[in-house]
């Protein structure tokens, strides 16, 4: 039996055919339904701290039952936006409505939302049970009813044996679950999660991601999560608002923001991307001809949103959508670049090849290690050819 892998014979894709974006099919899309009423609306919301603008004219709608993520680097205003919804900050301009009701002037303790704090903010003088009961006590709920709800919540987060423990006798993961149980105990209209998994280790974080998603479905509460971790946002959220410097630069499904980023900024923030600065040579609908002076290459890609000839655009191609080969391409092949291996990063499931193109341009090509044995492994300083399909790249104008 031959151990050599068969070279993948790629079926020729008809040029310019538009398929669905991404690998996930979901029927939940109230944002596309003109009759759907959003639960929360941010309308032109701005917030300044001194001379610094933390949130700059943000408008977004969150629909009932949605798992919505605010994603961005630290200092992008995502936490401030969430804190304005919780009532801890007051917007300088704009309006926030919840179920059609303007929240301006409503103090935090009267808002039907609950927050899970990044630091968990568990009351150190109360035990697990009392922490969870805290919000229920404020409502003036009957004692036996509180007891029943608390045990229901303890069961939900699997902390029943720890009911009498104080927060400082719990592990990080247990604290996180107490904070979660305390926040959902009141059955709020909406749950706000501020970096909920930030303090957990990687393994626990992955488990908790799925737990949170299950919990959201089980409770039927709308979730708004703030995170700087793109994987976290992508895994859990129905939609993501990518934020940068106080602005919501793109709002869409995880597949949309990843596969059709609105700008170089978004493309670079979400995952890795190779960017080529190019000039539009010609539009031959549905294809566009781009010329990259820097890497002395011509590209042939879909002309989506591509301006007319002469304009400067950027072509963004994700590393995993590029192919790498030791064999020269057939004559006349498009989107093929010759280069030399600069660096190799082996991560187990993936291998990242950094290839130096003419003009000292570096591109990253990722290849899934789908086979255990490779006939001709690629090594340092090898001459290689990098190529991608015409629909693999996105044309960006900004």
């Amino acid at each position, binding site marked *: 039996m031959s151990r050599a892998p068969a070279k993948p014979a790629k079926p020729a894709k008809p040029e310019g055919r538009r398929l669905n974006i991404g690998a996930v099919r979901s029927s939940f899309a109230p944002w596309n339904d003109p009759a759907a009423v959003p639960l929360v609306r941010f309308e032109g919301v701005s917030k300044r701290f001194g001379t610094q603008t933390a949130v700059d004219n943000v408008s977004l709608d969150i629909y009932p039952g949605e798992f919505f993520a605010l994603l961005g680097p630290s200092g992008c205003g995502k936490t401030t936006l969430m804190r304005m919804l*919780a*009532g*801890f900050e007051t917007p300088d301009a704009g309006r926030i409505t919840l179920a059609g009701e303007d929240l301006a002037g409503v*103090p*935090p*303790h*009267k808002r039907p*939302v*609950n*927050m899970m*704090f990044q*630091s968990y*903010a*568990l*009351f*150190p*003088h109360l035990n697990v049970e009392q922490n969870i009961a*805290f*919000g229920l006590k*404020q*409502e003036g709920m009957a004692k036996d009813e509180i007891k029943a709800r608390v045990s229901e919540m303890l069961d939900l987060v699997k902390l029943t044996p720890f009911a009498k423990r104080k927060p*400082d006798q719990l592990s990080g993961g247990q604290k996180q679950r107490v904070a979660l149980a*305390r*926040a959902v105990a*009141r059955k709020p209209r909406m749950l706000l999660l501020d970096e909920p998994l930030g303090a957990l280790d990687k393994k626990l974080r992955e488990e908790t991601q799925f737990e949170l998603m299950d919990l959201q479905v089980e409770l039927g509460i709308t979730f708004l999560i703030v995170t700087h971790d793109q994987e976290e946002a992508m895994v859990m959220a129905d939609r993501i608002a990518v934020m940068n410097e106080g602005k919501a630069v793109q709002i869409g499904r995880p597949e949309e923001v990843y596969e059709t980023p609105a700008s170089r900024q978004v493309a670079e923030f979400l995952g890795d991307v190779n960017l080529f600065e190019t000039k539009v040579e010609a539009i031959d609908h549905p294809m566009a001809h781009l010329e990259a002076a820097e890497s002395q290459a011509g590209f042939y890609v879909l002309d989506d949103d591509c301006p007319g000839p002469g304009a400067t655009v950027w072509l963004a191609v994700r590393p995993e959508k590029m192919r790498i080969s030791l064999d020269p391409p057939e004559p006349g092949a498009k989107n093929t670049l010759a280069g030399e291996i600069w660096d190799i990063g082996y991560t187990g499931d993936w291998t990242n090849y950094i290839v130096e193109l003419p003009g000292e341009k570096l591109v990253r090509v990722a290849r899934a290690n789908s086979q255990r044995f490779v006939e001709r492994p690629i090594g340092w300083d090898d001459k290689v050819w990098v190529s991608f399909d015409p629909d693999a790249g996105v044309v960006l104008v900004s």
Partner: protein
Amino acid sequence: MSRPRSRAALIPALWLGIFFAFPFLLVLKLSLSDSALAMPPYAPQIDWAGGMEGLKRFFGALDFDMYRRLTEDRLYLDAYVSSLQFAATGTILALLVGYPMAYGMAKCKPGVRSVLLMLVILPFWTSFLIRVYAWVGILKPEGLLNAFLKLLGMEPHTLLYTPAAVQIGLVYSYLPFMVLPLYAALERLDHTLLEAAADLGSPPWKSFWQVTWPLSIPGVIAGCLLCFIPMVGEFVIPDLLGGPGSLMIGRSIWMEFFANRDWPFASAVAIILLITLVLPIVLYQRQQARALEMGR
């Protein structure tokens, strides 16, 4: 227990031995002696030249006469009770004044905080005696307080040489000892806990009682003990501001020691006072240990 740790524990033990145990034993010995018209004014003396026989004679002469005398004279029991009353009232008043002060300070911006902290400590830069004397000037019949009352068209009140004056003096003098531990406890309070309380539906005044107050209890206990213990034995304030009615045990000790030259009796009074105060000190230490455990 590891060796370095037990060695480090030796330092406080040595300290305690030199500055507490040894003087305490001296006073205890004194309290078991009898008064004498001699120099020094007590008997028996240790007869070092007599060797073992002398020591035996010395220990044989020690007795509890002074303590018996203490129970026979109601004056001293009254002085103890009134001292405890003055101290308890003073501590509660200091807490009522000090808590809002500390709370306000902890709520200030960090820059303002350090200035306010400075101001709380500032009185220590002047002699304690002078500060208490200043109150004589305020409280005396033709003093500042009455001048102010007259200005407002109110009846003059003479507070000097009344129990109220002692109480004012106690609260004034020990207020920083209340404010500082309270401030330390309140300043450490995590602000997000109050946000969490608000988020869970608690209005601000309720959050104070449900979150701020319980978390500041270690500071309250520390402040109360730091005020109460020295207040009980306070001698300068009742002496300068109090009249004959304001009986405090610290003053009684002073009188016995210096006016009556009855050293053994003064020592007995002091020993009883110490035993009375050991209870709150033990409570304080236990609370400190618990706070340490909580902080871990």
